[in-house]
Structures are given as structure tokens and as C-alpha cells.
């Protein structure tokens, strides 16, 4: 069975918690463990936080999240239409941040760690899209 949702909201920090809770509720339709749900919440929180902090650091704009699953594959796409990333390779290095003021540069590292697949697309002054995949293994009944 395939199912999907699409959310759009202003890229402000107050929506970070809403986004991870909403996607966790959607993912909970699958036969999913609490550990897997926590993984998804961390990954979504990091992705949306990056939209707010980096994508829209001096301007406002919306964040769009599309989540879908088919069988045991959950895909989450988080997109902003902000500044974009000039150097994607550098951005993916652990500890890299363009805003060193108490940012740890761990957002993408966490997304990669907590999800099974991570793809990053970005264009300067167009926006950034993160595609994350989590495979939910089938559970044995009982």
C-alpha cells in the first residue's frame, strides 16, 4: 500500500517540533518501533532546523515536507527555497557550519546516521532539498 502526505509551513523555529511530531505520526502508520520513530524525529528536526537556520537565515519563506511510504520504505523530503548551499561537499563534512555560534555542524551527520539513505540537492539562492529514506524491516507476528 502506498500513502503520502504533504505539509507546507513557514520556516520558523516554532514549527520544528510540529514537523517532527507530524511526520512521526505519519510514520507510525507503519509497523514501526519506538527506536525507529525516534530516529525519524531526530532526522526531521535536523532537516527543518537547517531550513530555518541556514535556508532562511536573513529572510522568510516556507518549508515543504513530503512524506510517503510504500511497503516498508519510508521516504521524507524536506525542502526550502532559501539561500542554498554554495559547497555541498563541504557542508556534508561533520562539524562544518557556516554559523559557528553554537552550531555543531552535526545536522547532516545526524540525518545520515538516523536514516538509511540521504540525498542532498541545493542551488544557491534557489533552495535546498533533502531526501531521506528509512527502511522499516518487517516484524514477525507475536
Amino acid at each position: 500500500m502506498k500513502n503520502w502526505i504533504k505539509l507546507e509551513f513557514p520556516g520558523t523555529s516554532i514549527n520544528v517540533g510540529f514537523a517532527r511530531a507530524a511526520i512521526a505520526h505519519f510514520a507510525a502508520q507503519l509497523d514501526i518501533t519506538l527506536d525507529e520513530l525516534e530516529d525519524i524525529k531526530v532526522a526531521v528536526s535536523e532537516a527543518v532546523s537547517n531550513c530555518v537556520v541556514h535556508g532562511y537565515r536573513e529572510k522568510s519563506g516556507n518549508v515543504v515536507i513530503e512524506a510517503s511510504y510504500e511497503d516498508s520504505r519510508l521516504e521524507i523530503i524536506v525542502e526550502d527555497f532559501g539561500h542554498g548551499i554554495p559547497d555541498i561537499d563541504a557542508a556534508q563534512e561533520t562539524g562544518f557550519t557556516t554559523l559557528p555560534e553554537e552550531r555543531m555542524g552535526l545536522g547532516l551527520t545526524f540525518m545520515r546516521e538516523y536514516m538509511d539513505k540521504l540525498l542532498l540537492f541545493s542551488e544557491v539562492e534557489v533552495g535546498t532539498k533533502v531526501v531521506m529514506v528509512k527502511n522499516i524491516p518487517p516484524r514477525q507476528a507475536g
Partner: protein
Amino acid sequence: MLLAFFRSKQVKWLPRSKFSLNCSKIGGRTVRFSIDVIGQALVATMDGDLDLHTCPQFKEALTEALAKNTQVKHLVLDVRNLSFIDSSGLGVILGRYRDVQARGGKLIFVKANPHIKRVLRLSGMHRIADFVDSPTEALERA
């Protein structure tokens, strides 16, 4: 001496000092915390989610408490009721760790659940902090 002070209060939980601060933020998810000064330890008890939206209040309160209490060397974070943390929350904790490190102090986590521990481990925080099971144990190490 710290333990004697703690036990003399005859409380089951950390006593509130005049430096206690409470904060809650409505919207998205909430973080609540109290901050107490016990001898040379600043003890922060946290409840809820610490993310991009909720961490500024926590950062401000910790920074203020550390500035006011120059005798404080150690930071004790009771995270038994902390349900979520991401890299934004970790950044605030790391920043305050640097403050207490400069005073020759320690960072101690009390009762971190497996999800919180995993985030802390992934960030490398486990290499700089102690993990204990009770506030009393934390004060013994402080």
C-alpha cells in the same frame, strides 16, 4: 560537604535555591526546566524537548546562572524527563560545558535515556561528560 548540604534539606529531590528559574514555552513542543545552585554545582533539571525553538530560553537561563554564581564549577544536567534533543540543544550544552571547563569543572548527565544517550554519543559528548544515575551520584562526582 555538598552531600551534607543536600541531605540536610531532607528532600527527595533537588531543593530550589533563590537562583531557581522556571521557563515554559507554548507552541510546538515545550521544555521546562529549573536551575539550582548546590555548592559548586549548577543543577539543571529538564523536562520536554530541547530543540532549535526551545533552546534559547535554556541557554539564556544557564548563561545567567553561571554569570551570577562565580563559585560554580560543575554543570549537572538531570535529563531523566528530557524526551528529545537534537544538535541545536547539544550546541547550547556544549557552549555551557566550555564555560565550566574554563573554571576547571565537569559536565555530568543524570539518568539519560537510551535515545538521549545515543544523540550524546554520536556528538562525541560522551567523551567529555560523565553519566550517572542519580543527582546524589552527580554531586559526589562534582
